[in-house]
């Protein structure tokens, strides 16, 4: 895994927004992803390429359409690198508590 590519890909809010959309609804085509976004089609397409190169998005050709899937494998590997095996459960509980207190907010 190219860790630099993953962090660079994640360092842009529009790209994180695209990942959020795929997290909410996986398997969207470029047209579907563009809906409701202020970005141009070209910009979305460019961001998707960067995400794909970092292996954060994987694609599947279905007929003429290309579906985009959030590929959580590299993000999982980042977690694996710094989160110890005994911390996992505590972090999960802390994360749930934070979400409950703040409402489901994303940045």
């Amino acid at each position, binding site marked *: *895994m190219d860790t630099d590519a993953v962090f660079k890909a994640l360092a842009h809010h529009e790209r994180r927004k695209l990942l959020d959309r795929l997290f909410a*609804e*996986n*398997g969207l085509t470029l047209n579907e992803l563009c809906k409701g976004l202020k970005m141009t089609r070209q910009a979305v397409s460019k961001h998707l390429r960067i995400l794909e190169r970092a*292996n954060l998005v*994987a694609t*599947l050709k279905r007929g003429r359409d290309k579906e985009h*899937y959030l*590929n*959580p*494998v590299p993000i*999982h*590997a980042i977690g*694996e690198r710094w989160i110890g*095996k005994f911390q*996992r459960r505590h972090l999960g509980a802390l994360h749930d508590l934070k979400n409950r207190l703040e409402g489901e907010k994303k940045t």
Partner: protein
Amino acid sequence: MSRFLYVTYIRTTPEKLFEALIKPEFTRLYWSETWQDSTWQRGASWKLMIPDGRVGDTGEVLEIDRPRRLVVRWQNEFKPEMRAEGFSRCTFELEPMGDTVKLTVIHEMEVPVPDSKFIAGVSNGWPAILASLKSLLETGDSLEFTKRWPKGM
């Protein structure tokens, strides 16, 4: 969503990766001590066995093309709400890329189920299992928390 797709790149050969996907002595190490019971012929029955002896999932081998492609028809057996959703299909594709193999795992319901509990379940499991498989093949050791079947599951 009734489908999930994962891609990971593993520094190994397609032959080794294929073996690691189906052989009990490998899957027990990175797939929570489970093993698959099948003769691995097209049309053969397939079972995912839980270490305590329960049958976790059942199905059949739909396609097998060593070391490139494996498609398994797959139904959960140990959780009634998942079993009720019917059969899923899990496709493994192995493609050599330089000194790595690109492994694509597609897991989808045969008949789309809105908010599928089965897909939610496997999509929670696959990233960890694949990361552990990668670690096993590249370093000789799998990830700690995938070495045991989760208590109480």
